[in-house]
């Protein structure tokens, strides 16, 4: 049972950067902007958070810097695609390359330096309960924050006026413009929220999960987050489910090896991707609705006169 708790805790840790980045990207995409630069924004968040934590000694400052770094990257993307209406796919790819390069340059002096350990929640009594104690009450703060974030995004999108406006902009930008909403303004906010969340996801890697800075440490997680958004049919809770599933299977395959089960390594490293896709496809197979799930204006530039 102790092992089970350990597996679940590790799975949540492995999933949290994906939860953060995918939720952010989901909001951007619901506003109609496809930002393929998640990987680039994450890695900038990772180095910005790490650098700020070392400079200030404060975890909070580190996290804020990571969000700011990611948001600035997203702002840059916004200037290109929203203000100058550059192609979103090409700009997003460029943003990833730019982020990887810039972070490598910025991070040169940080390789090999150590961040202080990240504080974990500890509630006397509760955190000491067997299994559930550490699982529910003993995680680091960002795990709880990421869960709260998913709930908040789901609520705002589905139940508030702001969410309605955001979705309107993503579904039909001309109509939203006609009734007086600033399409570009809403999209800037959504994209920058996505950037801030991606930055936070990157910081989770460099401040909590490893915790250290190495070049390219996001190792493709930005792309997994992007895929999760699609397979979750743009719904926050499904993105969370997908991320946790991915984390759980990744960790399960590592543990099954340490237990000495006879398994094929290549097959195992494939399973998280495969299983996540299969499950998410199955739950969204309600075909008529699934086809409607993608925001209708996703990836399209908006020009008020056209």
């Amino acid at each position, binding site marked *: 049972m102790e092992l089970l708790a*350990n597996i679940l805790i590790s799975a949540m840790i492995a999933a949290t950067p994906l939860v953060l980045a995918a939720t952010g990207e989901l909001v951007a995409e619901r506003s109609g902007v496809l930002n393929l630069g998640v990987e680039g924004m994450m890695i900038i968040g990772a180095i910005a958070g790490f650098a700020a934590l070392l400079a200030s000694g404060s975890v909070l400052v580190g996290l804020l810097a990571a969000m700011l770094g990611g948001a600035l990257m997203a702002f840059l993307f916004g200037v290109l695609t929203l203000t100058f209406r550059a192609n979103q796919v090409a700009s997003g790819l460029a943003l990833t390359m730019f982020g990887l390069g810039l972070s490598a340059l910025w991070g040169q002096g940080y390789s*090999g330096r150590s961040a202080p350990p990240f504080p974990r929640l500890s509630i006397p009594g509760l955190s000491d309960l067997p299994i559930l104690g550490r699982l529910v009450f003993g995680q680091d703060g960002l795990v709880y924050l990421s869960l709260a974030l998913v709930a908040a995004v789901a609520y705002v999108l589905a139940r508030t006026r702001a969410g309605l406006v955001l979705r309107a902009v993503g579904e039909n930008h001309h109509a939203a413009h006609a009734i007086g909403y600033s399409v570009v303004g809403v999209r800037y906010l959504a994209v920058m929220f996505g950037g801030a969340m991606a930055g936070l996801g990157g910081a989770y890697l460099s401040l909590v999960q490893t915790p250290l800075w190495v070049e390219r440490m996001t190792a493709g997680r930005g792309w997994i987050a992007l895929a999760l958004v699609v397979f979750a049919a743009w719904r926050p809770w499904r993105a969370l489910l997908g991320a946790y599933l991915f984390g759980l299977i990744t960790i399960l395959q590592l543990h099954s090896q340490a237990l000495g089960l006879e398994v094929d*390594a290549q097959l195992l490293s494939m399973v998280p991707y495969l299983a996540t896709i299969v499950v998410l496809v199955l739950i969204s197979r309600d075909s008529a609705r699934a086809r409607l799930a993608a925001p209708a204006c996703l990836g399209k530039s908006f020009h008020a006169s056209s």
Partner: protein
Amino acid sequence: MKSRPFSKIAAGLAASLVLAAGTALAQTKPKVSFVYVGPVGDMGWSYQHHQGLEAIKKEFGDRIETNFVENVPEGPDAERVIDQLAATGSSLVFTTSFGFMNPTLKVAARHPKVKFEHATGFKQAPNVATYNARFYEGRHVIGLIAGKMTKTNTIGYIASFPIPEVVMGINAAYLAARSVNPAVKLKVVWVSTWFDPGKEAAAAKALVDQGADILMQHTDSPAPVKYAAEKGIFAFGQASDMTQFAPEKHLTAIIDNWNPYYIARVKALLDGTWKSGDTWDGIKEGTVVFAPWSKAIPADVVKLAETARDEIAAGTRHPFTGPVNKQDGTPWLKAGEKATDKDLSSMNFYVAGMEGSVPK
């Protein structure tokens, strides 16, 4: 007054002549190129190869040009990168990861005048040399230390891909650990990547959760060492000295010191004596070296490790000396028999006593 435009033209001409001569001179300088699988800043494998590049720059200065391409994935992209280096004037190209083997050979066939060197591979050609280091000698030494120092009798091993290089490292470490601690177990987790700090840390955690109290790795990032420091257990660094990531808990590291080899090969290129071949250097040649022993290692264990190191250097000890059976019970080495290099470079099985199986 009339001469002024003329003098301008003359000056311009002279300047362009100098420039042209400069470029011509530059072109006669041999260019040495490196292809890395990871980032230069991985603090492990690629970092050490890059130290080799710095070493040849220092050694040969203006006599050569150098360049490198980092983060080259093992696969079709590698061929494109290597081809481009060969086509744009490189005289000698070092491709520094196992997965670059076939791309290197393909490109070499298209550019017979360019010389190639492929690290850790086993296929040569007239213009493709291979080179590797006997890391298993280092694994033997750290295996002895781990066998002596584990309290739970469980050593955790984070492995990358089931290639002979990695499998022989696991076997060498296990045989050495068992020779000083018959009860020892070696748990292996394959992460199917050379570099993913998050996944390497997760693998380290899985091993520790299952009782390992000392970690070894055959992946390139310092994340497992860092995790060990956080958990208060011991770990060995990989490829370069990782003490900085776990000052209290880093026992030592097997350091890849490619510098002597790279300097020798570039010298051969400049002297016109470069020949294809297969080089496999180890502790004796100074290619496999150790980071300073941690103070946490008891004096008698340091002595044990140093004796092993010196005997391997002197040629009186071989990490794979019989009797050793394969995991399935079939005999491999008879008593006193030493494994041949050919056996080692195609090793795809665990030795008897190991649990789990080598992934296919």
